[in-house]
């Protein structure tokens, strides 16, 4: 009677698309909110890039080149936006859907598997993050902060950062117990934002702090995006990419091990 659309399950992406479309339907009434998610990063850009930037004037890169402080800070804020976009979506929003809104309890009674749900959430996070990133890069271009046309490569680079953090986000969603845990995540994330080489070159940090900064995932994201948008490509960028790949793999691997356990009671 009801051998329903089994064909769909053969293509692995089918089920996760159903999750994605649920998010789309649920949020389309609040599209203004989704679309304005990029506003926060723009506010940071205006306050620190332009406001504080006007006080600083120009900054000399470790390589000796001098650029405006605004152009220096903007890519870092972009990398941060990419991280925050996916991290918040995959950690706290997934946690809220699973713990408070009980969205997945209904979904799990269908052929959907935990991993389909997770994948759907990752697509959704990447789409949202991608929209913010694109908005931000357009703003950067409008204010003349992009070095060359190649700088639009900052968009895929930023989406890649989002992907790298999505596994961690999902893992955190399974680790969180309640709201205060989320506060702690925000604390760590914000500390990375303030000290991940966002506002001043790591080389200007005291010696003991530098290794700490190199260990921060956001630092590698910032270096990658900054290098691309300033047109300063270097061998170190391969290290940045490798670090982020490792983060993506590790996060995803732990997440898929924990998710089924967290969701199936």
């Amino acid at each position: 009677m009801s051998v329903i659309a089994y064909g769909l399950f053969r293509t692995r992406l089918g089920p996760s698309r159903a999750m994605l479309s649920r998010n789309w339907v649920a949020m389309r009434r609040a599209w203004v909110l989704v679309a304005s998610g990029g506003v926060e990063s723009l506010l940071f850009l205006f306050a620190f890039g332009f406001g504080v930037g006007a006080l600083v004037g120009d900054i000399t890169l470790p390589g000796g080149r001098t650029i405006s402080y605004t152009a220096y800070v903007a890519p870092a804020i972009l990398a941060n936006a990419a991280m925050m976009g996916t991290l918040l979506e995959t950690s706290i929003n997934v946690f809220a859907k699973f713990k408070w809104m009980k969205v997945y309890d209904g979904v799990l009674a269908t052929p959907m598997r935990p991993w389909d749900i997770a994948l759907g959430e990752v697509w959704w996070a990447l789409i949202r993050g991608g929209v913010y990133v694109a908005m931000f890069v357009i703003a950067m271009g409008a204010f003349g902060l992009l070095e060359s046309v190649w700088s639009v490569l900052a968009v895929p680079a930023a989406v890649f950062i989002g992907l790298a953090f999505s596994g961690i986000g999902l893992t955190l969603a399974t680790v969180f117990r309640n709201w205060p845990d989320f506060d702690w995540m925000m604390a760590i994330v914000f500390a990375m934002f303030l000290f991940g080489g966002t506002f001043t070159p790591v080389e200007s940090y005291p010696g003991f702090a530098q290794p700490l900064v190199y260990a921060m995932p956001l630092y590698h994201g910032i270096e990658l995006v900054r290098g691309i948008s300033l047109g300063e490509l270097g061998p170190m960028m391969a290290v940045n990419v490798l670090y982020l790949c490792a983060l993506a793999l590790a996060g995803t691997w732990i997440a898929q091990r924990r998710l089924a356990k967290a969701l199936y009671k």
Partner: protein
Amino acid sequence: MPVDENEILVRAHGLRKRYGDFEAVRGVDFEIRRGEAFGFLGANGAGKSTTMRMIGCVSEPSDGALDLFGLDPHTDGPAIRARLGVVPQDNTLDNMLTVFENLTVYAGYFGIKRRTAARRAAELLEFVQLTARSRDKVDDLSGGMQRRLAIARSLINEPDLALLDEPTTGLDPQARHLLWERLFQLKQRGVSIVLTTHYMDEAEQLCDRLVIMDEGRIIASGSPRELIDTHVTKEVVELRYGGLHTTDLADIARTLDGIGSQVEALPDRILVYTDDGDDTTAALEARDVSPTSVLARRATLEDVFLRLTGRALGEDDG
């Protein structure tokens, strides 16, 4: 019946579920056949919902064997769930979606095409009489309406087996009877139904077979009639005493020794189990215990339930 009645859809053997140190389900066996309505009865916390979740393949059994449609839940969970229609005890509706979207989005999880989903959603809303509310958010519905929506949602994939955890809790009498009718139709079309309920009349009406659970075990099973025949007498005489305290009732009950096959004092009345109500009523009058009212009636499933899971169980049998 259009289908083979003896085909077994669900087979459970020694099914157990542990939560840490606590064992919620302690080894249950049952079989559910195609086209039958199968009921789980039991006090709060007996393990009904836990068992239902294991049948629904959203909870991994800690031990024992479970087989649905000849498939193994461990490896074929998605394929099994594609053929199930589930109404969980707590609805699990999606609060961010409208009534209509709850059905269509849910259909998406089954991979049902959009147009089919929209058509079925409209039909089902008609069935649960929520068509007028289809654009409202779930939060704005009353508790009973949410329940009806959850029931409609469970039928969106035209399931072979419907798992209904207390489906009629919170429904008004009209909606309840309507649902019974619809469940009956489903059954006739060969859909099997597994339900839990706290309404004994519902269980008697709907279930071909049922089991009574207590503290994670099955303590009785059979058709409603069989259970009544096996566990209680044909009839029951109820004695009520307006205004008397529970302890007084127990005292009175003790003076009734020898009448009927068993006497039981409940907080508000005394039950005398007997095979012949008229005889017993006469005998009671002879004893001069002057109740405010006497009622002789047929024994029901409720009497079975109270005897098996109530306080009387330990006292009489232990």
